[in-house]
């Protein structure tokens, strides 16, 4: 079997993992379709791309390293406020704002990773939750800096690369978000298929045993947490730049819970899980936006219960199982 031979040739196994599949190419090409088919929905498409990027960042720590975080919006919000504040105070160049968002989120992520790497289980959940709530409260109280509950107003972006204005129809916004998403995806794809990515999966399965075979769990968790924070920061910065405003909601528990729902719905531990989840979640929310929020959350609740009970690995996990069953029947 494949697993037996791969045990003897780890490099061959990793190389087989990195090969691009037809489905992946089809997926990325279909991301261009909105430009042609749904030109009126490009704003929504850019929001989906940003949400997918945020879900990807959570996937790195949750799906790969097994760190359950209920406060991941903290880094999203940090990125958003950094980029927003930079643009508000006279430097509206988008790419440098993106870098600033990533750097600020990564710095905070790096510092907090020392705490994160020490804990597991309920304590970890509580610390991430508490950290998220703390930042939310801080931004709420720092009215002079963030605008508090009114949100950050007066963000003015310069044209992207000096040539492409952010237009009302979201053409530039979607192209920009999609390119950033693809670039970050390439990095994470390379990373998760590297020996480092493999050892992360090992940590998810057993954080105590990994150091025994020479993979320092704590150091690895610190690295991936910092990286994940940086990506979440980029996603937040993208949202701030494309919407030209930052609301307190970017830091809220609701956003942390939503991204968790998105990732789990799509399938955690698979790079595309967050993408599938983001598309379904955001399109559904757009369709049902006329509904009162309580019905929307009723649906989310039922969905969560159903996913946990019947689809333990999300939609992609279910599809993979179907495909495996079909292949088993064919041979």
């Amino acid at each position, binding site marked *: 079997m494949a697993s037996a031979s791969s045990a003897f040739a780890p490099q061959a196994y990793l190389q087989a993992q990195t090969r691009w599949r037809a489905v992946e190419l089809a997926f990325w090409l279909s991301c261009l379709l909105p430009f042609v088919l749904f030109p009126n929905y490009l704003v929504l498409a850019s929001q989906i791309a940003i949400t997918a990027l945020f879900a990807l960042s959570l996937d790195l720590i949750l799906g790969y390293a097994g760190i359950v975080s209920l406060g991941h919006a903290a880094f999203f919000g940090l990125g958003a406020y950094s980029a927003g504040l930079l643009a508000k105070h006279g430097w509206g160049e988008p790419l440098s704002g993106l870098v600033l968002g990533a750097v600020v989120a990564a710095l905070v992520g790096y510092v907090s990773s020392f705490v994160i790497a020490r804990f597991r289980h309920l304590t970890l*959940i509580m610390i991430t*939750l508490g950290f998220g709530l703390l930042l939310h409260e801080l931004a709420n109280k720092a009215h002079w800096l963030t605008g508090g509950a009114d949100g950050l107003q007066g963000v003015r972006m310069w044209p992207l690369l000096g040539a492409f204005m952010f237009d009302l129809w979201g053409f530039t916004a979607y192209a920009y978000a999609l390119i950033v998403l693809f670039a970050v995806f390439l990095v994470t794809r390379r990373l998760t298929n590297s020996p480092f990515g493999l050892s992360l999966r090992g940590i998810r399965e057993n954080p105590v045993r990994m150091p025994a075979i020479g993979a320092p769990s704590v150091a690895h968790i610190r690295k991936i947490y910092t990286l994940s924070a940086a990506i979440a920061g980029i996603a937040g910065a993208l949202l701030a730049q494309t919407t030209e405003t930052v609301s307190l909601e970017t830091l809220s528990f609701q956003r942390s819970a939503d991204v968790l729902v998105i990732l789990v719905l799509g399938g955690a531990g698979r790079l595309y899980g967050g993408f599938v989840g983001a598309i379904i979640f955001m399109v559904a929310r757009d369709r049902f936006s006329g509904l009162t929020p309580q*019905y929307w959350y009723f649906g989310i609740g039922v969905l969560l219960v159903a996913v946990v009970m019947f689809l333990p690995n999300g939609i992609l996990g279910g599809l993979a199982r179907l495909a495996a069953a079909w292949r088993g029947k064919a041979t």
Partner: protein
Amino acid sequence: MLGPFVGVLFDGFAYGMLLFLLSVGLSVTLGMMNFVNLAHCAFAMLGGYVTVTLMRDFQWPFFATLPLAFLSAAATAVVFERALYRRLYRASELDQVLLTIGIAFISVAVAAYLYGTVQQPVELPSYLRGSWTLLGVNFGIYRVFLVVTALVIALVLGLMLEFTRFGGTIRAAVDNQRMARGLGIDVDRSFAVTFALGSGLAGLGGALAIEIVGLDPAFAFHYLVYVLIVVSVGGLGSIGGSFAAASLIGFSDVAGKYYVPELGAFLIYLVMLALLMWRPAGLFGKR
């Protein structure tokens, strides 16, 4: 100077006792099964709405509604435990978090559908209103009642855990679930009973909380944070720990809001993070 401080101390303690009632059940069930039940406050909210409905629509006296708040929350909890939770005891904590967040979402939506998003008022009996003045300090009668109730419940729970056979099985299961099973203790059954008892206490806490903090559909999430703080700071499976942590958190919250209102809820989160980093297993936790 001292008068207001004693007043704040007392109000904080009363608030802490409320948190104790809301969180003690979660602490024990978490300690037994390591089941992360984020829907705990949804059961508390149920108790609150039962009291509101019985008082408003059926003109029941306040005290008569309290046992029903307890029973309805406990009965609903048993149904959920048997139907859903039971399947996930050995699942990952992520699955447990997701399932119970889902149930909490549903409860919020149902409460908003049935009662709207406005605060539900309760009309307290006249003998629970007003306050006593002792040495220049005001003691709200309702808060005194709350403190006494919580102390009695804590005492009964403590005695039950320490001196009854049922308490013994719970302590065994919290200390080492597998060993307890090996000794022939039906951990699943005692867990179901504990779960019902804990959720019932949460329902009672929800009913008693209306006068102090109000009741609206956001209750299930807003107070979940406080309850989780109490549980994780107090340590899992420890009634004494929950009691101490609830008093501490209740006092810091009230004192923080009284003396440094511009900090808001900031202080409480800071206290929690500091305590968790200092003692990851909680103040009284063993693991």
